[in-house]
């Protein structure tokens, strides 16, 4: 069985077959390895690499907010993982692909404090475009990449629901 899995910006081709005794033959981008793998509890996966210095890794996987997206928890860190699918941004501010239109959306309900760009402005990657107050804090929502502001869909003072499109970058 094969999967396309994206971690940390890199997509790898993974093929998996059972090898008996709790082990699996896993090939990642063509490089084969044997892993002793087991579920632990509701979310946990424990990996052991008997041939590779007996390395151990324990990872918890939970569903993310988009189809095919998982959140992997590894030693205090939380890493998005995409299985067989395009990445949908989460926890962040932008949806879309590396090309074409980007929509900066409200990640949670809140109030627009300031709109920092106007239609037609050029913006740099990671430049703040809107400030939304939520959970007692002012949060800057940023443009995911460089581009031009195509639409500004809110004004300062507006209350917004989660998912509401705030600014469209072209």
């Amino acid at each position, binding site marked *: 069985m094969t999967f396309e899995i994206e971690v940390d910006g890199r997509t790898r081709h993974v093929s998996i077959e059972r090898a008996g005794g709790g082990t699996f033959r*896993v090939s990642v981008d063509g490089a084969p390895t044997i892993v002793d793998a087991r579920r632990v509890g509701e979310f946990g996966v424990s990996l052991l690499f008997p041939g590779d210095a007996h390395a151990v*890794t324990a*990872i918890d996987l939970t569903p993310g907010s988009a189809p095919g997206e998982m959140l992997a928890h590894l030693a*205090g860190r939380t890493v998005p993982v995409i299985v067989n699918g395009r990445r949908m941004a989460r926890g*962040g501010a932008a949806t879309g692909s590396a090309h074409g239109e980007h929509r900066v959306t409200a990640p949670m309900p809140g109030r627009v404090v300031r709109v920092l760009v106007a239609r037609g402005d050029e913006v740099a990657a990671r430049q703040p475009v809107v400030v939304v107050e939520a959970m007692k804090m002012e949060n800057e929502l940023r443009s995911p990449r460089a581009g031009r502001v195509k639409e500004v869909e809110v004004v300062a003072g507006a209350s917004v629901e989660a998912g509401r499109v705030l600014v469209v970058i072209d």
Partner: protein
Amino acid sequence: MKVLIANRGEIAVRVARACREMGLRTVAVYSDADRGARHVRDADQAVHIGPSAASESYLRIDRLLDAARASGADAVHPGYGFLAENAAFARACRDAGLIFIGPSADAIESMGSKTRARAIARRAGVPVVPGTDDPLDAAASEGEIRAAAERVGYPLLVKAVAGGGGKGMRAVDEGGGILDAVRVARSEAGSSFGNTAVYFERRLQRPRHIEIQLLADHHGTILAFVERECSIQRRHQKLVEESPSLAVTPELRQRIASAAVKAARSAGYTNAGTIEFLLDEDGSFYFLEMNTRLQVEHPVTELVTRVDLVHWQLRLARGERLSIDPDRAITPHGHAIECRIIAEDPDQGFLPSPGLVRALRAASGPGVRNDAGLVGGEVVPVFYDSLIAKLIAWAESRPDAIARMQRALREYDVIGIKTTIPFFQWLMREPDYIDGRFDTTYLDRVLADRRGAPFTTISETEALHLTIAAGLDAWWRAHGGVAPDQAGPQSAWTRVARLDALRVR
């Protein structure tokens, strides 16, 4: 005594623990969003006080007093935030015959105005940051504003008299920006605090934020504790606190502590409170403000002095005399560091990341204290402060405490949402932090320099392992969840229902 805890989250849990240890019953209050929250579970009684918005629940004095009446509470602990520094609330509690676990309403009021607090400190002989003594006249002309600013000197800060948390505050480097800054600060102060008054303060270039915890009884004794170092701040929000400070010698500690006691005494202060100071590079220190309540970061003081501050808040409110050895309070044993575990994604500019915490696996073991506000299965709501837990590490020395914190951060998994843990993992390995080379401007400067570079780092090997784990997870689900020698990802409920627990190998 039965204590109504007029708060939520980790501080409500903290206070309830102290009450239970002292044999006091507790009453929780909750909004719609918090019906299933841990602080409700942990109490003996719980009273609903309104809709989710804090303005309709945790900030409603009338409803809190109704809740106290309905549940038969004798005392109210305000925690921090919400109404903790609201003099009207303290007064209303006392008028209703309830013990308010905190200072008098008058003391809250005096210290709540920054200019009044500065005047109190100055009268007590405590140095304050040079600035205007009184609020700027609301009708001051442009010329008067400029002249007042010149007298203070640039760079300066325009600050709201009723301010806090960096709101209603503007930094001005030279004369050109002063009028705009006053206008913006007044408008922010008005919308945040309902009070447009502002004043000027000289801006120190590289100050440390040092604060002194105080306990004061009703019999004239005021006790000062070893300082807390709280300079690790992002936009005026503390993220890491420790005790003691590397920048404070025993001699300086005594001087700051005695200044803190003098200021508190002249305000007629009782119960627990904290005086914040700015410590300049040349060793001068200046009164900044007083927090008339328990602080988020109180555990670091508890760990280096082994005094339970919340127990003492309750005892002092009952009229007990302070009986702590002053030497013990001012002498740190070892070193403690606190990291605020917040439901924010540090890799997205610290954007809030509320949501369902599917499981909470907190760090534990020697030298580690975990003060969490929720258990696994709870949702972090979008309505309140996103602090979900405090992780505190103690060790013999600061390097050992950092090493222990690194260990604890590795074993702390908040499964289901993103938190600030990766940020702390990064900070605890930063040479400047490790060597103590920081001040209140440190973190904002570093964050600006990093231009959004992620704190979460994944090695090449870890990325490979994550890829494999995700693949196996998908494989298991495709194979119906259960392989003969593997428990699959189906519900624990259906799984365990089929097992005889005693036969499991």
